[in-house]
C-alpha cells in the first residue's frame, strides 16, 4: 500500500511539518517566561472559536485565530498587571472557553465527532484552503520566533534589563502571546487543541537536556518537534487513531530517551568542576553583617555570653559579638 500517494496524506504531512517547526519555536519563549501551560489555556479558549465558525458556517480556522488572539491578548494584560486574582481569572476563561465551545457546537447541530477532529487532530480533514492559511501563518510565526530571537530572548530573560536597553518590553510580550495564539490554531488540525501545548513544551524540555545555549535549545526543539509531528502523522495513517495522540506520545518518548543522557552529562560536568574552596568560617576578617543575626542576643538566646571589661560579648559563628546601642561591635 502506498498511503503517501493520497492527497490528504500529503496535506496532513505538510501541515504536520509546519506545525512541528512553529510550536516548539514559540514554546521556547513560553518556557523561558515560565508559562508552559499558556498554550493549553489558549487551546481551550480556541474551542469556542471553532464552534463559532461551525455555528455561523464560516471558516472554523479563521474564527479560531480571532478568538485565540483575543484570549492571548487578555491573558497578557492580566499577566502584565500582575494581579493576584489573575490566576483564577485565567482558569475561568479557560473553562468557559471549552464549555462554551461544546455548547455552541451542539447548538450548531454538529455532532461531537466534528468537534473531536479539532480537539485531537485529524489527518483526513485538512482541506486545501486550510492548508494554505495554516502554512502561511506558520511561516510568519517561525520567521518572528527565529528572526527576532535576540530581542525576544532579552525581553523574556530579564524584562527590567531589557527596558533599560530601550526595548519595548510590553510590545514584545504581546507579540509572544499573539504568536502563541496563532500557533495554537496552526496546530489545531494536526495535534488538536487539547494537546497542542504538549508539542510546544515537550520538545523544549527534551532539548534542554542536551543543550547549554538558548540558540541551540530553540533549534534542537524545532527539529525534535518536526520529527515528532511528522512521525506522529505517519503512524496515525497506519493505525487508525487521532494524530494528536501519536504525535504527543512520540515527543514524550524523545524526552524519555534524552533525560538519562542529560542527567549523565550534567553529572560529568559537575565532576569536572574544580573543587571550590570554602571560606574559613572562623576568619574574623570576613565581613559580618547585621542581616546574619536573626535575633537580638540576650540572656535567653542560648549563645555563650562572655563578660568583657564593662560589657558582655555573645559568641556565635566564630566571633564575639557585642551589642552596643542600636548596632553591634566585634571584639
Amino acid at each position, binding site marked *: 500500500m502506498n498511503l503517501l500517494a493520497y492527497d490528504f496524506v500529503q496535506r496532513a504531512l505538510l501541515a504536520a511539518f509546519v506545525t512541528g517547526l512553529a510550536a516548539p519555536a514559540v514554546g*521556547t519563549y513560553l*518556557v*523561558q*517566561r*515560565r508559562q*508552559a501551560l499558556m498554550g493549553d489555556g489558549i487551546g481551550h479558549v480556541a474551542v469556542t472559536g471553532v464552534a463559532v465558525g461551525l455555528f455561523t458556517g464560516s471558516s472554523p480556522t479563521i474564527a479560531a485565530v480571532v478568538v485565540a488572539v483575543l484570549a492571548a491578548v487578555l491573558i497578557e494584560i492580566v499577566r502584565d498587571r500582575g494581579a493576584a486574582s489573575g490566576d483564577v481569572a485565567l482558569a475561568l476563561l479557560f473553562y468557559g472557553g471549552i464549555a462554551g465551545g461544546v455548547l455552541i457546537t451542539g447548538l450548531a447541530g454538529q455532532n461531537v465527532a466534528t468537534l473531536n477532529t479539532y480537539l485531537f487532530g485529524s489527518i483526513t480533514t485538512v482541506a486545501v484552503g486550510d492548508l494554505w492559511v495554516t502554512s502561511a501563518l506558520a511561516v510568519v510565526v517561525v520567521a518572528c520566533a527565529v*528572526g*527576532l530571537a*535576540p*530581542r525576544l*530572548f*532579552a525581553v*523574556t*530573560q*530579564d524584562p*527590567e*534589563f*531589557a*527596558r*533599560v*536597553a*530601550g*526595548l519595548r518590553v510590553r510590545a514584545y510580550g504581546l507579540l509572544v502571546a499573539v504568536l502563541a495564539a496563532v500557533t495554537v490554531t496552526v496546530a489545531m488540525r494536526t495535534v488538536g487543541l487539547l494537546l497542542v501545548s504538549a508539542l510546544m513544551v515537550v520538545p523544549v524540555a527534551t532539548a*534542554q537536556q542536551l*543543550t*547549554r*545555549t*538558548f*540558540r541551540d*535549545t530553540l533549534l534542537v526543539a524545532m527539529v525534535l518537534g518536526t520529527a515528532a509531528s511528522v512521525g506522529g502523522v505517519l503512524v496515525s495513517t497506519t493505525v487508525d487513531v487521532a494524530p494528536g495522540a501519536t504525535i504527543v506520545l512520540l515527543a514524550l518518548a524523545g524526552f524519555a530517551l534524552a533525560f538519562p543522557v542529560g542527567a549523565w552529562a550534567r553529572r560529568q*560536568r559537575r565532576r569536572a568542576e574544580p573543587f*571550590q574552596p570554602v571560606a574559613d568560617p*572562623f*576568619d*574574623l*576578617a570576613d*565581613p*559580618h*553583617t*547585621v*542581616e546574619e543575626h536573626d535575633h537580638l542576643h540576650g*540572656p*535567653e*538566646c*542560648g*549563645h*555563650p*555570653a*562572655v*563578660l*568583657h*571589661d564593662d560589657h*558582655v*560579648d*555573645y*559568641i556565635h559563628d566564630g566571633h564575639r559579638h557585642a551589642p*552596643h546601642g542600636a548596632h553591634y*561591635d*566585634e*571584639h
Partner: protein
Amino acid sequence: MLTKGSGAVSTPSTPTAVLAMRGGCVELGGRPVLRGVDLTVTERELVAILGANGSGKSTLVRALLGLLTLQRGEVELFGSPVGRFRQWRRIGYVPQRTSAGAGVPASVREVVATGRLAARPPLRPMRSSDREHVRAAIEAVGLTDRARDSVASLSGGQQQRVLIARALAGDPDLLVLDEPTAGVDLTHQEALAEVVGRLVDRGRTIVLVAHDMGPLEPLIARTVVMRDGRVAYDGPPLPAFQHTPHHHHPHDDSRRPDSPHRVELGTPIDRPIEGGRPR
C-alpha cells in the same frame, strides 16, 4: 537627534547633569518608599549610594532609570525627561541580584550579548564590533573560560559577574550598579574596581549602590546615604561609612584575628557566664 558621545553641549564650567531627580516620591504597595528625593549626578562623577536594607536604594535607582513611575517629582536622564528619553544605549544597568538563569538554558555569552541590543538595529546580526565588546566584557569579569557554559551552571558570584559584563558590553556613558559585588570574591572585586577606574578615567559616569565599598573605596569621592526613603547625607565619604563594624571602645583597636586583643574563652576577664546570663 543627539548621537552617542556628542551628548549635550558641555562646558567645563557647568558640568552636564547626567541624572537628575527633583522631589522624587515613589509608592510601592501603597507605602511611600521614596519621600522627596533630590539628587543630581553630573558627568564624570562616581557616586556611591549607601544605606541600610530597605532604605530605598534600589527603589531610587529604579526610579532614576524609569523602571518605576514617580508619584510626585521628576527625573531627567542626560537632560531629557525620562519618559521621552531614547538614547538607552548610553546607559548600562546591573540590577540587584536577579538570578541570571531562567527557564531555558542560556550561555554566558548569550546573556552578555543582550547588553549590545540597545546599540543594534533589530533583525541585524551582530557586527564584529559587537562581538568584540562582548568578548572584552566577559574578559573584564574573568569569565572567558566559562563563556560557552550555561549561566545556570555558574555559582552565585559568577552569575553576578555575568550581569556586570552584560552592562559593560554596551560600553555605556552612564553605568548604574545595584550592589554589583554582592557575593563576588575579593579578587574579582579588585578586577571590577580596576574596570570602574578605567571607565572613570575615560570620562564615564558611575552610580554604585553598595553596602561594602571594598576595593572600590579609594575611587569614591561622593557618597549619598539613604535613610527611610530620604537622602540623609550627600557629600564626601565619612569615615564611619567606610568601616561598617566600627569601634567605640578604647580597648578595641582591631578586630583582625591576629590582633593581640583577641581574647580566648577562659581567660580571666572573659570567663563564660553560667547559663549565658551576665552578672
